[in-house]
């Protein structure tokens, strides 16, 4: 698909999540010649040799500037061939490169599911540790752009259900940069999920290129009355809800999961153990979700210590609808987080969640 109609704000005073991704890719390519980026339209005007070749830099401009700096050998536009893109990246990773694939939208990933599920995720295990697959697969995820059913999936649960994959979903510019650097340096395949509503979010970049360890959650806001665990863009709506809750006298702790596989159980359990209340926010259709897995584990590990049932704020159990009022109803919202939080804190008679 495509970029939204407004011109792209690049390199403003305060960097955006997009800038953070570009920064990390650049730093990683700079430090290690084995890092390459590949995907559809990540350069633009491929093979023309004209001045505009490489000017586009991907659907969102994340790879802008990389073609000029690193050239066509390391910044590779591909045909629309998701299976071969990922499959060849897996093979290249086995053979010594550290490819970063841009799959555009997570909704296109099913075309490459054999390569993700059967090849990338299993190789190290099946071959008894002989294979390393240092591969990152970046994708835009998320609804809200009125892009309709085939461009709005996040597929968080699908990816997180696969042993052998690491899965991350950064929610701030700082995390986008830090986690992407660590993902590229990881010797395991990492699925890197970028919510489209975050691309223009501003915030500081990390001071260094040290990276942020995969597998760690972040406490985005401290609080003592309840814990809200979020995935990706849900962090923003949870923080919004937390501000309102504070006005109501409820101090919510917001834990941004960041790493969807493996999960940072210590941080979650420590927080819920303290607050005794848990709300989970995830933009996945109700049914089988990461929030379910967290709720199950927390209920088991903290049995008898919870003050209220764990509540999940999920997307509707349907594909993503196009029509704005339907899509708005489909999405988890700050309003729905508020309702769940009040319920969990006994501030409201049980009603529609």
């Amino acid at each position, binding site marked *: *698909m*495509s*970029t*939204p*109609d407004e*011109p792209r704000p690049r390199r403003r005073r305060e960097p955006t999540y997009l800038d953070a991704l570009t920064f990390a890719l650049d730093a990683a390519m700079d430090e290690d010649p084995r890092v390459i980026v590949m995907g*559809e*339209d990540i*350069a*633009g*005007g*491929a*093979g*023309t040799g*004209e001045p*505009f*070749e490489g*000017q*586009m830099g991907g659907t969102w401009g994340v790879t802008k500037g990389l073609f000029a700096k690193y050239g066509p050998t390391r910044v590779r*536009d*591909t*045909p*629309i*061939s*998701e*299976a*071969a893109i990922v499959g060849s990246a897996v093979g290249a990773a086995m053979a010594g490169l550290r490819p970063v694939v841009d799959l555009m939208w997570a*909704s*296109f990933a099913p*075309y490459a599911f054999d390569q993700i599920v059967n090849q990338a995720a299993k190789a190290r295990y099946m071959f008894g540790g002989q294979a390393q697959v240092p591969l990152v697969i970046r994708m835009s995820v998320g609804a809200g*752009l*009125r*892009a*309709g*059913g*085939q*461009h709005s999936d996040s597929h968080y649960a699908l990816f997180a259900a696969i042993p052998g994959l690491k899965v991350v979903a950064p929610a701030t510019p700082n995390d986008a940069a830090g986690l992407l650097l660590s993902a590229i340096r990881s010797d395991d395949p990492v699925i890197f999920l970028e919510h489209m509503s975050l691309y223009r979010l501003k915030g500081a970049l990390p001071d260094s290129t040290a990276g942020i360890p995969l597998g760690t959650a972040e406490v985005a806001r401290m609080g003592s009355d309840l814990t809200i665990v979020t995935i990706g863009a849900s962090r923003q709506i949870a923080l919004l809800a937390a501000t309102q809750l504070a006005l109501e006298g409820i101090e919510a702790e917001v834990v941004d999961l960041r790493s969807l596989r493996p999960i940072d159980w210590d941080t979650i359990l420590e927080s819920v153990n303290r607050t005794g209340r848990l709300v989970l926010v995830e933009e996945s259709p109700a049914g089988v979700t990461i929030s379910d897995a967290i709720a199950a584990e927390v209920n088991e590990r903290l049995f008898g210590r919870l003050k209220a049932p764990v509540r999940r704020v999920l997307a*509707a*159990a*349907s*594909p993503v*609808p*196009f*029509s*704005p*009022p*339907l899509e*708005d*109803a*489909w999405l988890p919202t700050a309003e729905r987080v508020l309702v769940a939080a009040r319920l969990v804190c006994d501030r409201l008679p049980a009603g529609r969640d």
Partner: protein
Amino acid sequence: MTDEEQLEGLLAMLRIRMFEDRVRTEFAKGGMPGFVHTYSGAEAIAVGVIGALEPADLITSTHRGHGHCLAKGAPLDGIVAELYGRETGLCKGRGGSMHIADFANGMLGANAIVGGGIALAVGGALASQVLGDGRVAVAFFGDGASNEGVFHESLNLASIWSLPVVFVCENNGWAESTPFSYASSVSSIAERGVAYSIPAVSVDGTDLTAVRAAASAAVARARQGNGPSLLECIAPRREGHFVGDPEEYRGREQADQARESDPIDRLAEQLVARGILSAEALNAMRKDWSGQLDRAYEFALAGPWPDPLDVERYVYS
């Protein structure tokens, strides 16, 4: 094509063009949600191919589906209302531009997954073969889509089963920002026919009569039970990939070149030169359609939004 058919074809193409021009304007104004990809410049393909079909025949489409929809006879009101996400839209607002469909008229959906419609059309042809009802199925897809694995699997399957399907590649020279010449290992999609023992031709996709002739032959072959055909129609992409595309990846030159051969101007000039069409008649056509478009936009914008409580409706039967 008879003179009358050519006139009809011109009108059908004009309708698509004017429809898209209007979409572009309205989209720029805001209020039309989501993403829109126009069909401008490729009108002769939809009109030429679908003109060779019977109403009961089936088509599958792409992210660029307005032209196919209109040519297959979908009601204008329902199309526009769908672009606005209204309950009165063809898909009750659930689909939008990239997933527009009109099953009543055999249009099995635009498809926002590149290559997504190819195998579906093979399935339509399979249903026809099993039920013996004589329907032909057409898969429209882009040059970019022909690099998807499902293209390969679909053509092989249709070939060995001798299915009544026509594969129509709309080669506009680009897949988003990527030139066909870069992404494809052949200089013409038709060269791939031999890998499937499927007869393949490449025609000028801006020439309605050429497209129609090739399509008629392919459809006849399918209808007679002689199996699939591959039809490449070359029609350079005149506009950005989507409405609002800044086109940083190509020069003005490339865009201008693409505009040189316009399927509508070309046919209109011929018909005028041959005295079959007058400038006045052309204007009257435009005016009439313009009025219909006005009314369709009115209908669409007056239409109700879907009820948010219905968000989980239509997931299951």
